[in-house]
């Protein structure tokens, strides 16, 4: 999502006498990425492929694991729960994150402090944060005790062990992924545009609607995509704070692995991966998102 400066081919004229060296230099960019590329290929891509292959060739070559998906009510419901949770969480992150991103960009002296506040939970493990939410949202946790103390409720609400708890905890965990790309996009808006708008008599709201919002769409798109795709794969949090029926696709995959039904686990993983890729591919064609992609290619 951030801009990666593409090293341009070195253009020092070397003359025809050293074609070999020239050739070598032309491949410098490739050589620079080669170690990571090899690392990712051998230690990530190949194992993932081998795992996905199990959905097709275990015990023999077959499509039966995929056709089984269509009859699997559990898969259908789990898939729906996963998508539904991811959409809700992404919207929550957007609504809460956008103003924070604006605040972060506008703050001058406070900016480092705000950044730390955003990033601090980012550096804490998902596990610890989920556990913290258990303490906060429990029937005798801080939130319930607080609401009782100020007289808003008489008896503790059940928040922990519900889908709401999953959403609250996931939004908290994923917020930085929304805030940072948006802030990045906002920071690149030429301040003179905003000054010009207000000079021409635009109200702050009009400036926001017609200048800031459209120009930050690339950040919104990047943040939304990132948050959504990450949300698709969550399982620690729903397992810890979620309700009795909050079974996400990842939880189902873990269950199938534990039950030694590996081909089907691989099939479900393939579906999860394909969903994420399909969303990325489809989102490319949206105007704002297209910008985000182009930006990173610049």
């Amino acid at each position, binding site marked *: 999502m951030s801009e990666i400066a593409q090293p341009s081919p070195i253009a020092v004229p070397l003359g025809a006498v050293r074609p070999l060296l020239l050739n070598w230099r032309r491949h410098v960019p490739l050589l620079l990425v080669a170690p990571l590329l090899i690392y990712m290929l051998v230690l990530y891509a190949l194992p993932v492929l081998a795992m996905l292959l199990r959905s097709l060739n275990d015990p023999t070559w077959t499509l039966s694991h995929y056709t089984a998906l269509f009859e699997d*009510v*559990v898969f259908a419901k789990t898939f729906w729960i996963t998508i539904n949770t991811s959409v809700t969480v992404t919207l929550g992150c957007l609504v809460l994150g956008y103003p924070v991103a604006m605040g972060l960009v506008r703050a001058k002296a406070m900016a480092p402090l705000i950044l730390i506040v955003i990033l601090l939970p980012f550096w804490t493990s998902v596990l610890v944060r989920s556990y913290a939410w258990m303490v906060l949202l429990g029937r005798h946790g801080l939130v319930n005790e607080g609401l009782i103390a100020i007289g808003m409720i008489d008896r503790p609400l059940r928040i922990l062990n519900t889908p709401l708890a999953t959403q609250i905890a996931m939004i908290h965990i994923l917020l930085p992924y929304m805030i940072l790309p948006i802030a990045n996009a906002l920071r690149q808006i030429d301040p003179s545009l905003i000054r010009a708008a207000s000079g021409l008599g635009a109200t702050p709201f009009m400036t926001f609607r017609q200048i800031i919002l459209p120009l930050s769409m690339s950040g919104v798109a990047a943040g939304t995509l990132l948050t959504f795709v990450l949300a698709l794969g969550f*399982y*620690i949090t729903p*397992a810890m704070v979620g309700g009795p029926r909050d079974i996400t696709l990842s939880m189902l995959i873990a269950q199938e692995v*534990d039950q*030694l*039904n590996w081909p089907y686990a691989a099939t479900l993983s393939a579906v999860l991966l394909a969903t994420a890729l399909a969303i990325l591919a489809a989102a490319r064609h949206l105007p704002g998102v297209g910008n985000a992609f182009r930006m990173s290619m610049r």
Partner: protein
Amino acid sequence: MGKNRSHLHLGRRTALGLVGAGLAAPFIRPSLAQQAWPEQTSIPDILKGSGEIRIAGYGGTMQEAQTKGYYESFEKLSGIKVRPFPGANAPKVKAMVETGNVEWDLAQLSRGSIMNLQKTGDYFEKIDYSIVDDGVGKEYRFEYGLEMLLWAQVLAYRTDAFKGAVPTGWADFWDTKKFPGDRAMFGTGGGGWPEMEIALMAAGVPADKLYPLDVDKALASYSKIKKDVVKWWETGAVPIQLLTDREVTMTTVWNGRMAALQAAGVPAAISWNQGLLKRDAWGIPKGAKNKVNAMKFVAFSTMAIPQARVALGIPYGSVNIKSDEYIPAARQEVLPSAPAIKKQLVNYNYDWWIANREAVIPKFNKWLLS
């Protein structure tokens, strides 16, 4: 503990297990009280050797009890070094054997998880029963593993929740009028199997008529409690946490976990009646480098004194009939192997589950999400 009780699985399971360790941390060492522990002073020459053995267990308090119970004395008496690892589970054994990179010589699993895997290929070595102590009951022996720890999945409740009323069985667990409050039960996570036996007993099926399980009847019974079950737990730390935080008034638990809870002063108790008596088992992954040493350790660890020592360290029972003489009467009151408790428990039938798991679990999942 077996596969269904391990709390240090891959990924989420690892994560949840760490939570478990964290939650349990304040309560660790509840029962390593300094009583007169029996000491194994010598072993047959056939159990002696050299080199090492890598044993996968569950870490935490279990590993502490095992270290004190039999790892240390085995090292001293046999000359074989013991290297314990946490995170034992059957999927990892499958992966290790399939990739030819067997990192464990011995794993603490269950008859269920061992035979489930063995059903699909050759993943475990056969046990050499010629060196196993004759105090180990026949019922604990099987071709590819030896059961080495008795534990119970039992009803636990907050003693401060029901004005002195005491639940004494699963019908009470289902009775939310007499015993108000939310419930938690074991689900299908962690490779475990749902507590269908419990649902059936709640519906009035006698303990000796449970198997073969009537799955539809069990689900119908489950439906009556479903709205009160706030959590289908999958690691042992979760029900303990729910009881501590007063999220539930009653739950199913692994009996060993309750000792820590009670030691921490939480007003909670076990109701042993109609609990499920389960067993952990040693399994030797196929192709283990030190399988001879593993076999020797399997034999040593199921001898009377090593078994008794573990039972003194953590409230799980012995599979060796001769252990009882080394366990004080006071300790017997918390052990699922104690005669007075064991007779209230229902012998868990792993074989039924191995044969029927594939059909039952999707059915349960479907019911859960409906």
